[in-house]
């Protein structure tokens, strides 16, 4: 089945096909005789599917060692900042299905049909679900969007949580983030990105201002990428020129460094579950303060 007999497999060829003069891989990479190009390509294609958040192709039969390598790829993918946060539209759509008795009983016999449709987030997420997700106490993918597109755009200087309405929460040790580094953080009601700039630490909301999807940091292009509609934000939170349309900038979150920790100014516990105006704007997104 395998076109190459592993025993004939010259490890040096596998290490650097068409790469004469390239730096060799580490000496500790003692190439097991059982590795073939198909192994490398197969796992690589798998990783690329994961990076695209798409269902991977079924690999050839795996032994336990190889399966663990695939498992590690999944674990590390989940550790990609922002990658493992559920899409708010998915959370809402599945909830709708579960709450509809007729649909629920129909689906009960048909697990394949359980894939929820994607739905728009507008209107769907105001009120109950936002409060409920906040009550879960983990970073929830719920934003409250209240027709902001009819409002004047917020300026980039607008803080997500206005002074006097929030609390300071420590999210990282200051020495954890190297200069130029970007870290994802989540508090009870806010997710965001913290970055270490030459002038100190800066934080931004981690929710797309378009449809409130969770952004992912892309270290290659140094942008925050939106998995839903391809939006991109520069590392300072402006709509990138590569975005399909212009998006309002990501709201800023105040930061300070104290006791060796970086603190962010966020919505206090309790506010998020009461559906107050502060909860609406401070929860995940609700980017435009003029909505209040």
């Amino acid at each position, binding site marked *: 089945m395998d076109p190459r007999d592993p025993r004939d497999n010259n490890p040096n060829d596998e*290490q650097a096909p068409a790469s004469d003069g*390239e730096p060799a891989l*580490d000496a500790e990479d003692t190439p097991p005789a059982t590795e073939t190009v198909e192994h*490398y390509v197969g*796992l690589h294609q798998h990783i690329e599917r994961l990076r695209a958040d798409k*269902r991977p192709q079924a690999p050839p039969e*795996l032994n336990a060692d190889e399966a663990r390598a695939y498992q*590690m790829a999944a674990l590390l*993918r989940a*550790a990609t900042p922002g990658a493992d946060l559920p899409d708010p539209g998915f959370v809402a759509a599945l909830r709708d299905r579960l709450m509809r008795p007729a649909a629920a009983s129909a689906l009960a016999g048909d697990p394949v049909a359980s894939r929820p449709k994607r739905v728009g987030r507008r209107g769907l997420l105001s009120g109950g679900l936002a409060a409920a997700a906040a009550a879960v106490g983990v970073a929830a993918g719920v934003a409250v969007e209240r027709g902001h597109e009819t409002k004047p755009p917020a300026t980039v200087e607008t803080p997500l949580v206005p002074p006097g309405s929030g609390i300071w929460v420590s999210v990282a040790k200051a020495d954890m983030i190297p200069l130029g580094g970007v870290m994802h953080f989540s508090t009870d009601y806010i997710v965001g990105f913290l970055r270490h700039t030459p002038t100190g630490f800066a934080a931004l909301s981690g929710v797309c201002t378009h449809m409130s999807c969770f952004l992912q940091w892309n270290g290659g292009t140094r942008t925050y990428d939106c998995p839903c509609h391809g939006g991109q934000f520069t590392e300072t939170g402006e709509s990138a020129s590569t975005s399909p349309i212009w998006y309002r900038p990501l709201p800023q979150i105040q930061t300070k460094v104290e006791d060796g920790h970086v603190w962010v100014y966020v919505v206090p516990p309790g506010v998020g579950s009461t559906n107050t105006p502060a909860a609406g704007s401070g929860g995940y997104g609700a980017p435009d303060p003029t909505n209040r």
Partner: protein
Amino acid sequence: MLRKSRIQDHNPDASNQTSGNHSLQRLYEDNVIAIYRFIYAKVGNREEAEDLTSQVFMKALRGLDQKRDLPSIQSWLFQVARTVVADHWRAFYRLRADSLDDLLDAGWESPLDDAHTSPERVEERANRILKRLPARYQEVLTYRFLLNFSIRETAEKMRLTEANVKVLQFRALKKAGRIDLESL
């Protein structure tokens, strides 16, 4: 961090439909994100994570009537999630029976505590594994996953060919798997 949910005792008859719905709603809202993240860390992509999360709650819906007064409804829900993930792996990855047994023996389906579901925990586990890897392995996985670099960007950073990176990431992930196994 995660609140334990309580399922209120309810009769399956129509007069109590509302309270049943309410219980289910609480169960869902209290756990959907944790379940999703748990599954995501097993499959590593959104499409499958959404499918399997849906399956977990559909199964939970069916099992709910027999599951009243559960001491920990959340443990049960995660048990459902583990079963769903294991079934998925068995079917989709066509693991040989002995391979799956090896994985299960190795704690792949280890009992889940709350900590496993928090994002910090996934990142901590990833970092713990990365730290124990040889420098080049650590580097390639950091570029590819934590920094989400493309193969070309990684190759440029590491001064390797793209083919080299593919070899390196394969071996790094294999080594990472062994380290993870040892630490269980």
